[in-house]
């Protein structure tokens, strides 16, 4: 590995450790400042970071732009909500049900969507997410438009998510585990096939890869990560709402990924932190903060490509290079 590349890799590790380390300290800082506001905010951030990292597997590494992944967040949230509504508070059962339903839905929807590519794929994923949104609204016995209140947070036997701190560290733990798993995955046989499909799918088929089954597997994996994020979200808010699946939610995930930097595993975490904190600050100034965010997104797309994470990595690498050079 050349020195420049090594510095880039080391810089990535530094930034990632700082980011995750910072996140690990949140509960302590939050209790010092007082009040649950910050821990709640950062739990939200970690949950959406998880969902964004999940989506990034297929979006950043597979070039499959799914504009409907929020529907898997909804499936996770409603699994908790519906089961809780019927008196099942066990986290394990909720998890099993959420993953099972999520997997079946992801396979079916994935098979349909992956018959297309490019803009058609984007439009169809958006349409199916909308379908689930309307489905949730039409389920009057589960709250319909207003959503479903959840009596108690998930109970996993040895621990429950009732405490804000436990919930936070559970979410963070899942995020870190996911980051590690994906980091291995993108360099494995499977990861290389996925990235090859992004790079030149025609050639992949000509080499002998049955590309559909690999893309579908990646789609299902990314969907299940979002399902877990949805479960955590329902636990955080003690609420399952159709709005979790609205098209804006899917769009927000994509914004987080691009904002943070698409080409890396950790990038979306930075994007989630940035977007949600920005929303907090802006909404404090005016209720019409969206009018700033909208054009801001357009500008970011048109100008910056490396994202915040990429920028931070670049800064750190150049800093190390300046220290290493003899002048």
């Amino acid at each position: 590995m050349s020195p420049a590349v090594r510095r880039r890799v080391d810089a990535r590790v530094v930034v990632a450790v700082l980011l995750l380390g910072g996140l690990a300290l949140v509960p302590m800082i939050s209790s010092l400042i007082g009040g649950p506001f910050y821990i709640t905010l950062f739990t939200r951030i970690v949950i959406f970071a998880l969902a964004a990292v999940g989506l990034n597997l297929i979006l950043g590494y597979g070039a499959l732009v799914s504009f409907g992944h929020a529907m898997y967040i909804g499936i996770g949230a409603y699994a908790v909500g519906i089961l809780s509504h019927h008196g099942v508070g066990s986290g394990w059962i909720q998890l099993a049900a959420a993953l099972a339903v999520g997997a079946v839905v992801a396979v079916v929807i994935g098979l349909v969507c992956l018959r297309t590519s490019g803009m058609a794929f984007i439009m169809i994923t958006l349409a199916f997410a909308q379908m689930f949104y309307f489905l949730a609204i039409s389920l009057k016995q589960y709250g319909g438009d207003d959503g479903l209140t959840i009596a108690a947070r998930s109970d996993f036997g040895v621990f429950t998510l009732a405490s804000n701190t436990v919930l936070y560290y559970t979410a963070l733990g899942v995020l870190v585990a996911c980051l590690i798993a994906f980091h291995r995955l993108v360099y494995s046989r499977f990861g290389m096939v996925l990235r090859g499909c992004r790079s030149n799918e025609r050639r992949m088929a000509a080499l002998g890869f049955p590309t559909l089954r690999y893309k579908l597997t990646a789609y299902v994996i990314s969907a299940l990560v979002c399902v877990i994020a949805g479960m955590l979200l329902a636990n955080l808010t003690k609420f399952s709402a159709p709005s979790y699946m609205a098209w804006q939610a899917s769009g927000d995930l994509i914004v987080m990924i691009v904002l943070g930097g698409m080409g890396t595993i950790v990038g979306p975490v930075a994007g989630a932190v940035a977007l949600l904190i920005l929303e907090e600050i802006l909404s404090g100034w005016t209720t019409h903060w969206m009018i700033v965010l909208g054009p801001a997104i357009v500008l970011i797309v048109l100008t910056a490509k490396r994202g915040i994470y990429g920028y931070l990595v670049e800064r750190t690498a150049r800093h190390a290079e300046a220290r290493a050079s003899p002048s």
Partner: protein
Amino acid sequence: MTSLLATVGLVKRFGGLTATDGVDLTVEAGEVHAVIGPNGAGKTTLINQLSGEIAPDAGRILLDGRDITGEPVYRRALMGIGRSYQITSVFPEFSVLDNVVLAVQAHAGHSFSFWRPLSAEAALIERARTALAQSGLAARLATPVAALAHGERRQLEMAMTLATSPRLLLLDEPMAGMSLAESERLVTLLATLKGRYGILLVEHDMDAVFKLADRISVLVYGRVIACGDPAAIRANPEVRAAYLGDQDAAVAA
């Protein structure tokens, strides 16, 4: 004796244009069968139908006597068909070595391995290195593809195709855009492959064609107007009129 590859009455139309007009063609194991013809004759369309990227409107394609007309691209690759592209088709974001490792990986079992890094798969990497050495790119393993010269990219393209251990090679203008030295290198390489693979070679470079081909088919407006050994084709008046034309003087010299 069944041919390695045989087409029976292959037809492909695009709207009002008939790109492939009842083509009957065979490639025997170990032979180089060149397909020549003027631009627009339908040569790439023919290769696309053989590799499976386009479905013919009529006719059949047989590999070792087995009907593969309905088989998707990847299945044909796994059955032993290797194809190179007229416009270089590689993986620009990966290194030279990774490109060929992927090619080897396609024929080394399934890829549902999620944890073990590819860099730990010594067997695959070794096979990739060998293929690259054979194609003359041993010194450029770690180079990102974007940094390669055009001729080197064509060599990479060939290395990837060979790394899949095919039985039949479909080569679509492999010398396109190559310098004289690079073309000569490739001709030498292909000469060593003769006898080991069946090769369908679409080319414009007549020197290479006449040096390598055991048989030549001439494709004009989607139809094979002549098929035979190089001497017979050179002497064929129809072929001269339709294609070789004033090239005849240069070739005969």
